């Protein structure tokens, strides 16, 4: 009873209400997140349809290998995150700590690989403004219509904004996970007070799902060429 009292915030009637509210608040926040990513996905889709060849040419130069490894890393981190929630609810403190630390490790691996990838992009002159060579895009073999460097830049800018925004979310998530580790070591995450893990877990899974969309949109677009019998006319809106 005394633990319940310390866990229950003053403005809630009971723990059930407090838990429900915490989870509900996170779902609303994720709705906001869907709209912020939705806005840039829409912009990307519009230009992708308008300039298919340029976007495919740029996409073909991105590092599909690192992108794929990162996908596996991130999906694994979702598993360990889900296991942390389970461990908290059944009160297995050691398992909770292990799973949280594994999640952090996998998140750090993702971000580390992302940094490596960005650096390689830089060396390959794929960064608009910083390192970009317009001339290398004007003569690509096997592409019928001429690719325009400024449209390639457009694709690359979307790549950096989208992956950058995703990475920013990852960094926030890492901070939250570190906070969870501190809480767990102080023994504050218990079957009574498991909501912090569950709510942050929701956030973490959402960030993963965003990546599931980023992978095909950005990396896999360039792995094939548009079939010649499918002319995609420019869209005017």
């Amino acid at each position, binding site marked *: 009873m005394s633990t319940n009292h310390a866990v229950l915030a*003053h*403005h*809630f*009637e009971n723990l059930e*209400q407090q838990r*429900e*509210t915490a989870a*509900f*608040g996170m779902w*609303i*926040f994720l*709705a*906001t*997140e869907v*709209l*912020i990513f*939705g*806005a*840039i996905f829409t*912009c990307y889709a*519009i*230009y992708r349809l308008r*300039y298919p060849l340029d976007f495919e040419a740029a996409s073909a130069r991105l590092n599909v290998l690192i992108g794929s490894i990162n996908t596996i890393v991130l999906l694994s981190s979702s598993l360990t995150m889900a296991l942390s929630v389970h461990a908290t609810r059944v009160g297995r403190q050691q398992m909770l700590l292990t799973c949280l630390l594994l999640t952090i490790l996998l998140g750090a691996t993702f971000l580390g690989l992302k940094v490596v990838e960005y650096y390689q992009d830089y060396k390959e002159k794929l960064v*608009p*403004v910083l390192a970009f060579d317009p001339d290398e895009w004007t003569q690509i073999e096997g592409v019928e219509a001429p690719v*325009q460097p*400024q*449209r390639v*830049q*457009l694709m690359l*800018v979307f790549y950096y*904004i989208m992956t950058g925004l995703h990475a920013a979310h990852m960094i926030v998530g890492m901070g939250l996970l570190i906070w969870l580790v501190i809480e767990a070591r102080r023994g504050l995450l218990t079957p009574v007070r498991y909501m912090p893990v569950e709510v942050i877990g929701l956030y973490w899974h959402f960030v993963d799902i965003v990546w599931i969309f980023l992978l095909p949109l950005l990396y896999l677009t360039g792995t094939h060429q548009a079939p010649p019998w499918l002319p995609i006319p420019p869209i*005017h*809106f």
Partner: protein
Amino acid sequence: MSSAITTGFVPQAKTRPPRTPGENYLNVAFGVKSWLLTTDHKRIAILYLVTLTILFFIGGAAATVIRLNLMTPNGELVPADTYNKLFSAHGIIMVWFFLVPVVPTVLGNFLVPMMIGARDLAFPKINLLSWYVFTIGAIITLWALLAGGVDTGWTFYTPFSSKYARTNVLPTMIGIFISGFSSIMTGLNFIATMHTMRAPGLTWFRMPLFLWAHYAASIILVLATPVLAMALILVGVERAWGIGIFDPELGGDPVLFQHLFWFYSHPVVYIMLLPAMGIVSEIVTCFSRKHIFGYVFVLWSSIGIAVLSFLVWAHHMFVAGQSVYSALIFSALSYMVAVPSAIKVFNWTATLYKGSIAFETPLLFALGFIALFTMGGLTGLFLAALGVDMHVHDTYFIIAHFHFIMVGGSVMGYMGGLHYWWPKMTGRMYSDFLSKLAALIIFVGFILTFLPQFVLGYLGMPRRYHVYPPEFQVLNVMSSAGASILAVGYVLPLFYMLWSLYAGKPSGPNPWGATGLEWQTPSPPPPHNFDETPIVTTGPYEYSIEESALVH
């Protein structure tokens, strides 16, 4: 005991920390720290009230210089580029730093927990954080506007904002971007609170319409604001690094920016308007002593407006080169918004019909809202018509239309709500005579300011111009004269309301004899609102029960 029966709320036995008699949220703690670190929704509402009042008068000062400059056709008062910065500052401050937050963060913050019988909002710390985030955003924007200013107008159209403007576009946008997070936090808090913290017996369809209006507005806050954030990020990237996201020379499309911007900025009008409509529903029922006519219709019209508001944005772009077919569809959808809006106006009128009306100050403001909003809404239908819009687009007709909605609607509603709940917030009554005078002055001043602008716009005077042909001077002088009357009307409440804090007579818990849980508490309310969690046994607006109880 009789009061519990007549108003339909039975106190529920529940252990609460005992409260010293006479303790309220204002006198429970003193000092700057007790305010800046508070998580009490009522104190946060007061923090917002002070902040937003300051911002309102800063935005109003810019409008004053604009109207003074337009007294003469040649615009002798300020040079053209200063004029551009003035109308930009006026629009930016009034839209993002007054109208969007004002009703939710002041009255909503204060009343949402009280109306649902809760001790606080769902996330009190996030609520306080939202005030800090908002204030930081406001300070950055104000600094950007004062240190050089911005001349793009509040709409930041590309490629002007991204390429050509040589003013503080980026800092201004950063300020707006930051303040957007406070909008999201407020909306999120309201939605979560209404879903999970309603008192026992307070079912969804017993909620006061004020809450429904805030629920609808919160949906828009949560779903539209992130799109603006992304639009601002993209313009910022383009402006800072010269990437052609919206620049046709580099493969971008400026119309795409307008789509993103209006996807937020049309619904935002309803963030301003819906909470004010909620206020009017409360006031109209209270001062006609009647149940609202067609509760479910008014309720669903709020939700209907929120949904439709996301489907009409391109009516701002009829002349922006979008395809004829999408223009047709957006025109038709814009007409549809009139239906839920009209339902509200008709139902308020039907509520007043055969009511025992008391013309107290809040009702005067509410009636002003109904009159001015109706005019603003009907002229909005002119603008939804493709042919008419071609003629009056970017003229003073537009200016007049949206000021009728935003000032005649939202600000009137806010003033009504502030007067209605002021006794609850402070425990004091303001001057009856001066407040009625203020309501009258604001109404007359408003009409005189903005009615001539419809004519000006119809005759072809474009908006945002620093000079105009001499034949428009008479109407412009009328408008400026009205603006000076309007200014008096807005300054007056500042004085008598502050005066009421010192010399106002105590209001008692329920000066208007209103139903609603917030009136069941002492004025000002205790820190945790209710000593016991109330149980709700009837719907809102059971004024007929009270009347019949009085007869017996």
